[in-house]
C-alpha cells in the first residue's frame, strides 16, 4: 500500500512460524485499508531500505521478538528506535537503529522512527502459521498501533518539525 506519510515496514520470514509476525502485521494493515500509511514487507532490513526511508517523515518497524525484556502483558512493545552505536552488524541485515543512521547519513533522512516488537514463540519449523500466543499478541499490537496513529497524525508531527 502506498500514499500515506507513515511508512510501516514489516519484516521477517512468513515461512518460519512466528518470524512472520512483521509481514502478517502489514498484510492486515493493508486488508484493513488503514488511512495515512504506506507499507512494505521484507525478509529483513537491508541497506537499500535507507533510500525509501528518506522519503517519509515517520517510520514504524514491525518485527517478531524473543527478547524477554521486551515482553509485556500485551505481548508487544512500542518504542522509539535507538541509536545504532554499539549494535554489531550481524549478517546481511541491519537493525532499525543502524538503518536509520544509514538513512540519515547518506540520504539526509529526518524521519522519526519506532519499533513495534511483537513477542513470538515458535521459530524452528518451516510452517506458514503463527502460534496461538503470537496471534493474540499480533491482535493487541494492531489495536494499539491503529489507535496510536489516530492520536498522532503526521500533520501534527510536521507542524512540530
Amino acid at each position, binding site marked *: 500500500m502506498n500514499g500515506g506519510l507513515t511508512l510501516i515496514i514489516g519484516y521477517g520470514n512468513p515461512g518460519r512460524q512466528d*518470524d512472520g509476525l512483521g509481514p502478517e502485521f502489514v498484510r492486515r494493515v493493508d486488508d484493513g485499508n488503514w488511512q495515512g500509511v504506506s507499507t512494505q514487507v521484507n525478509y*529483513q532490513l537491508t541497506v*537499500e531500505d535507507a533510500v525509501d526511508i528518506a522519503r517519509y517523515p515517520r517510520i514504524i518497524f514491525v518485527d517478531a521478538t524473543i527478547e524477554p525484556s521486551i515482553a509485556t502483558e500485551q505481548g508487544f512493545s512500542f518504542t522509539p528506535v535507538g541509536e545504532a552505536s554499539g549494535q554489531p552488524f550481524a*549478517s*546481511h541485515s541491519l537493525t532499525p537503529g*543502524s538503518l536509520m543512521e544509514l538513512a540519515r547519513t*547518506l540520504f539526509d533522512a529526518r524521519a522519526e522512527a519506532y519499533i513495534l516488537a511483537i513477542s513470538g514463540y515458535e521459530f524452528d519449523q518451516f510452517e506458514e502459521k503463527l502460534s496461538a500466543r503470537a496471534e493474540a499478541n499480533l491482535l493487541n499490537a494492531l489495536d494499539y498501533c491503529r489507535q496510536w496513529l489516530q492520536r498522532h497524525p503526521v500533520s501534527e508531527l510536521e507542524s512540530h518539525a
Partner: protein
Amino acid sequence: MESRKARIVEIEPVTRVEGHGKVTVHLDEHNNVSEARLHIVEFRGFERFIRGRLLWEVPVIVQRLCGICPVSHHIAAAKAMDMIVGVDQLTPTAEKMRRLMHYGQIMQSNVLHFFHLSSPDLLFGFDAAAKKRNIFEVIKQFPDLAKQGVLMRKYGQEVILHTAGKKIHGTGAIPGGINKNLSIQERDALLIDVDMMISWAQNAIQVAKNYTLEHLPLVEHFANFKSSHMSLVREDGALDLYHGNLRAVDAAGNIIFDQIDYRDFNDYLMEEVRSWSYMKFPFIKSRGNVDGWYRVGPLARMNTVSFIDTPLANKEFEEFRSFGQGKPVSMTLAYHWSRMIEVLHCVEKIKELLHDPDLQGTDLRLKGERREEGIAVIEAPRGSLFHHYKVNEHDQVTYCNLIVSTTHNNTAMNRAVTDVAKKYLSGQKTITEKMLNHIEVAVRAYDPCLSCATHALGQMPLVVEVLDVEGKVVDRGSQYAELEKG
C-alpha cells in the same frame, strides 16, 4: 582455566555472515592450533516442508527457504518445474525475462556482500578496531563509494521488482515460462541509470583489484590453498549464470569433466556426511572423498570459464586470468575481485537485455509432455545451486533435494578457517578479537548463506565456549573480548 590444557575455543555465531554459524578452534596443550572447523547450524526440514505441495506452488514457496537469495531459489525451482511440465526450451521472452531477473539478483547480492560486509575489512584492514570495521566508517571515509553501493543494491532490487512482480515473494517465474513481460515504461525506467551502474561496477572492481594487488604478501598467504573448481559453463565455454553444462577443473587448470548435462549430476558428484557437521560435504566422485572437494562461486567461475561474453567484464576477466599465469587463482581473498567482475558482467547483460525487444513479447509460457522428475542447476551469487524434485500424478511433490552453494563450499571453508587459525592463532597465549576477525574474514570471503532466515530480535547472541580435551565446557562467555582467556 589452566593455560596448558588442550582446549577448544568456540565462536558463535560468525558475525556478518548469514544465519547461524560457529567456529571451533581446537588448540593443543601448547596453544597451537591443531584444527579448526566451521559448524553451520543448517536448518533442517525444508525438504519435508515442501513434500505434498503442488508443483505450481513450488517456485513461490521455496523463497521461504532463504531471506538473502530467495530469487535464486525461485528461478532454480521454476527451472526444475520446466522439466516436469515438459518444457526444455522456454520462449525467448520467458528465458530473457528470467535471465534479467537473475542478473538483477546476482548484481544486488554481490554488491551487498562487497560494500556492506567485506569492504570494511579491505578498506581498513583486518587488524582495525571492531568499531571501525563497519559500514558507517566506510560512509565516513568513503561516502561516495558507500552511496554507490546502496544505490547499486537498490537498482538490482528494481530489476527484480519489474521481472518477478515483487521485490520479495516474486511470482514472475512459473513452470514452463514467466507470467509477465517487461513493459516499455519499466524498461525505460531501468535504462535511465544503467550506464551509471556500469561505471560504478567498474569502480568497485578497481577497489577489489587494487586491494589484491597492493596487499599481495597478505593475500597470497591468507587462506590460499589449491583446490578444484566447478560451475556451469555455456557450450562454447563462456560464463553463463542461468544455464549451461557442468565443468570442473583441478588445481592446475586441467579439465576433470566438461559439458556434463547437469541432469546427470548424480553420476559425477556425491555428498558425504561427517559426524561433527550438520552440513554435507560434496565431492567429485572420480577424485574420491579425500581429494574430490572443490570450490564454487565467483572465484570458481573465473577459474572454470573460457571467457565472458560481455566486453568490459571480459577485459577484467583476462586481467584476472593473466594474474593467475594460466592456472586457477587459489587465493580465498580473490573471491572479492571475482565477485565484482561478475557484477560488471551482470550490469552489462542487463543493459543488453533492456535493448532487446523480445522482453516486450507476449509468448510467455509453454507446455509439453509431463514428466515425473525435474532437476535444475543455476549459478547463484554464491555458486552452483541444485534443485531436484519428483512429483506424483496429482502434481504433488514427493521428493525434494537441494544442494546449495554453501554446501558445495563446505570443505573449502573449513580449509580456509584451519589455514588462518594456524597462521594467526597458533602459539598465542591469548586470543584477541583481531585474531578471530581474521577467521571471520576467511569465512566471509565465501559469503556463506547459512539457510537461516529467522532473525527475530534478540536471537543472535554471541556465545563463546571453551572445552577441554574431553569435551567438557570449562569456560563460557557471551562477549567477543572474553575470548582472551588462557
